[in-house]
């Protein structure tokens, strides 16, 4: 695909973004992920429109998985909010890194509101890859188109997973439900470039079930804070020793 960097209008840039989204590798990733999340939402008794709205408002697959599984399992609302917010801290540096690429001389704050809300792993990786080669004036429109393409994919396949899970025999519905933990396990491992991230992954895998089995209050928060901090401390100690 040629670099999509020559546009004649904002609308063309927007649709260039949509097209770029639907032809990128993230289209397949989102398809699989949201079929799984759709099945999960069905399993935990949430409505399909609730899921669609959560994809548009939350727009972060890890936070949605945490939200759906914790709400569905009857966790306290405080715990759900805490786990969601701890999982979302990563969005902060992503927005910080993205906005300088979008901001030009005449850019108003309100032009940045949508790209800020749209910031998520898929859109962020593709924006950082494609925007630098593009004239500044088209970047926001392109970025919005890209995000709408990804979000539309998530909403559509969320519905697909939801109704597939409702209609399939248990074995196949179970296979759809397995998509979420399987794909998140592998994509999290793939994103763990540094030793500290790999340690956090292993510690979280071990601590989560142990704390749940011990019926510890706020088990998700403790999994994150204890597992993450332990991984960080080990990483610092190893660095200091090296």
């Amino acid at each position, binding site marked *: 695909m040629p670099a999509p960097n020559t546009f004649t209008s904002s609308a063309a840039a927007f649709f260039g973004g949509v097209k770029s989204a639907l032809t990128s590798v993230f289209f397949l*990733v989102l398809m699989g992920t949201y079929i799984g999340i759709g099945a999960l939402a069905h399993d935990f008794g949430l409505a399909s429109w609730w899921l669609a709205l959560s994809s548009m408002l939350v727009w972060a697959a890890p936070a949605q998985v945490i939200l759906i599984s914790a709400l569905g399992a009857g966790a306290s609302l405080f715990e759900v909010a805490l786990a969601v917010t701890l999982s979302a801290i990563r969005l*902060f540096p992503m927005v910080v890194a993205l906005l300088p690429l979008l901001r030009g001389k005449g850019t108003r704050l309100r032009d940045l509101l949508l790209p800020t809300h749209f910031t998520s792993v898929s859109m962020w990786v593709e924006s950082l890859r494609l925007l630098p080669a593009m004239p500044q004036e088209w970047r926001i429109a392109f970025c919005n188109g890209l995000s709408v393409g990804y979000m539309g994919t998530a909403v559509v396949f969320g519905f697909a997973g939801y109704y597939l899970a409702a209609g399939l025999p248990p074995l196949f519905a179970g296979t759809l439900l397995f998509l979420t933990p399987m794909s998140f396990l592998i994509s999290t491992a793939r994103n763990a470039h540094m030793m500290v991230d790999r340690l956090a992954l292993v510690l979280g895998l071990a601590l989560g079930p142990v704390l749940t089995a011990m019926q510890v209050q706020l088990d998700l928060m403790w999994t*994150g804070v204890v597992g993450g901090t332990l991984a960080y401390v080990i990483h610092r100690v190893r660095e200091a020793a090296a």
Partner: protein
Amino acid sequence: MNAVMAELWPYLLLVLVGFLPNEIWRVLGLVLARGLNEDSEIVVWSRAVATAILAGVIAKLILFSTGALATIPLPVRVAAAVCGFLAYLAMRRSVFAGVAVGETALLLGGFLFAH
């Protein structure tokens, strides 16, 4: 009125414990969008915390499954996850290959051992 509340309650929860606690970090990024880089210590730590939480949720979904996934025995679920992960490592870190092998292993195991 109560019926209306019961209908709207999940959506209110979505906004209060899903949307707001998630969105706050994006808004903070917009407001404070200066001078924080990917390698700063606080970013490394927060990424580790987020990774550990997500890993905990993944393990719980596999070990303490609900609904249709619970009809597939625990050893099959764990073995399928291990197969998928090994396939991902073996096939040049392909996410697609890992998920495909894990799903196939679950389907086969479920077909043979489902209760």
